[in-house]
């Protein structure tokens, strides 16, 4: 009887321990492929989504929180610091940031600091303050403390270019379980593959997570020119040089006055 009770207790514990994250996240983008044409001046991509609540949960969960993290192609950047040396301002020191996102947007329905505690935010890399930005330090590549002046300057300058952003109002709820998030792509957005990571929180804990992706590509004439410059350098150079001479000749004929 005692043994039987023990097994029963085990079953109860096992049931209680089944993953709490039974919610399902379903998201969709207004556009998976952003085409950069000659009239491109930036674009806003809308991400729609719904939360399918946990059917087995005894009662609906409290209001959900959502964090959408969009990262652009990873590139290397150097942050330089000027200093006065012998009366003139020169770049005295620099740090290299290795394979960090060229674009980074953290979109949420309220400030990320209110969504989860600092430890969770750090572990899940949520928010500009918590995102890993590895620097080359000597032979190592590692992220530094948040207050590192180079890291702060890098994030600040990227934010000024509108390539890094933390928007605590970009996610809005259309109903308690249907939401939309607007992803702002500025005019000088880098081209390439963008990863979209959507995280659902309830009561400060991560309950569901899903991914999506979008692609920013050059199209039409822009694509043709960019490909030609990259793949046929000599031909491209010769054509440009010829173009210059023809334009010069043409104008000297058109404007001829003597």
């Amino acid at each position, binding site marked *: 009887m005692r043994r039987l009770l023990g097994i029963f207790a085990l079953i109860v514990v096992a049931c209680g321990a089944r993953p709490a994250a039974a919610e399902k996240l379903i998201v969709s983008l207004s556009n998976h492929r952003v085409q950069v044409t000659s009239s491109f001046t930036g674009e806003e991509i809308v991400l729609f989504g719904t939360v399918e609540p946990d059917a087995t949960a005894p009662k609906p969960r409290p209001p959900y929180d959502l964090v959408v993290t969009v990262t652009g192609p990873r590139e290397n950047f150097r942050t330089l610091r000027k200093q006065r040396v012998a009366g003139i301002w020169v770049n005295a020191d620099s740090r290299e940031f290795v394979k960090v996102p060229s674009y980074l947007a953290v979109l949420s329905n309220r400030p990320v600091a209110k969504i989860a505690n600092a430890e969770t935010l750090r572990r899940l890399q949520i928010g500009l303050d918590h995102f890993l930005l590895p620097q080359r330090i000597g032979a190592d590549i590692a992220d530094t403390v948040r207050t590192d002046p180079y890291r702060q300057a890098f994030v600040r300058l990227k934010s000024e270019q509108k390539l890094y952003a933390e928007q605590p109002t970009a996610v809005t709820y259309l109903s308690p379980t249907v939401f939309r998030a607007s992803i702002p792509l500025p005019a000088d957005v880098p081209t390439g593959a963008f990863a979209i990571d959507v995280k659902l929180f309830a009561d400060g804990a991560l309950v569901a997570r899903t991914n999506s992706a979008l692609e920013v590509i050059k199209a039409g004439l822009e694509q043709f020119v960019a490909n030609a*410059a990259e793949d046929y350098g000599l031909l491209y150079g010769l054509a440009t040089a010829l173009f210059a001479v023809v334009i010069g000749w043409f104008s000297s004929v058109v404007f001829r006055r003597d």
Partner: protein
Amino acid sequence: VQIYLPIANLPVDVFLIFGMGLAVGFISGMFGIGGGFLLTPLLIFIGISPAVVVASVAPQIAASSATGFLVYWRRKSIDLALGSMLLIGGGIGTFLGVTVFTVLREFGQLDLLISLSYLTLLSIVGTLLITESLQAMNRARQGKRADLRKAGAHTWLHGLPLKRRFRRSRIYVSLIPVWGIGIIIGFIGAILGIGGGFILVPMLIYLLRVPTATVIGTSMMLTLVTMLAATIMHAVANHLVDVMLSGTLMIGGVIGAQFGAQASQKMRGERLRLLLGLLVLAVGMRFAWQLIVPPQDIFSIRHMGSS
């Protein structure tokens, strides 16, 4: 109206770029210089990456020089023989400049070197042009003849061997300083990413005594050839020539150059040199300002590529 630049990866106002091309083209046609030393800082200022700017300005300068070259060609004011001799030196100088550029980049202070070189060069050339033209204007006012070719004006440069007569310019000089000037221009051009016309014109006038009639056309010939070569080299080596940017600049540039060339014909030589001197000195002071005044932001970011 915005257009997207496919190599620079950002949209720009087409009229702003066209206007810059027009203004620099006017100056270029007026003084017989490429105008790279003006256009390059302007384009960097509006946010285009310096590497793309240097590469894309080259075809624009080539187009401006081509139209100017043809205008002067029809007036028969180009000294082909002198131009060819300068080009020989220019080729050697460009090669030396590219080599030094590569070495200096290893040390990581190329920016400072470029700023200091611009500052030094522009201040010296600007001051010399202003002083000389003011003296010439003063002489003219006092009724003396401002003749650069008086017998006493011969310098030690005229005593060198390998002398050759350049008929169109009506000068008889040694080939050594001609090649030397070509080397200096090619060298400076490769390091600073400029055609070098604003240094070449005064050098030809003051050192070789090339008359004002042929100096601008001949300088344009050198600029045209070196900038065409630079366009092809930049396209092959760095893939950074943005033809949309160059094209917009070119169309503005060639129109401006026509009016500039015509305006220069109506103006006295020394007054023209005074204006050029003031312009060159002003740009030089802009570089000094940038080095001396505390920057608004001591930090800056540079894109290092994806590798």
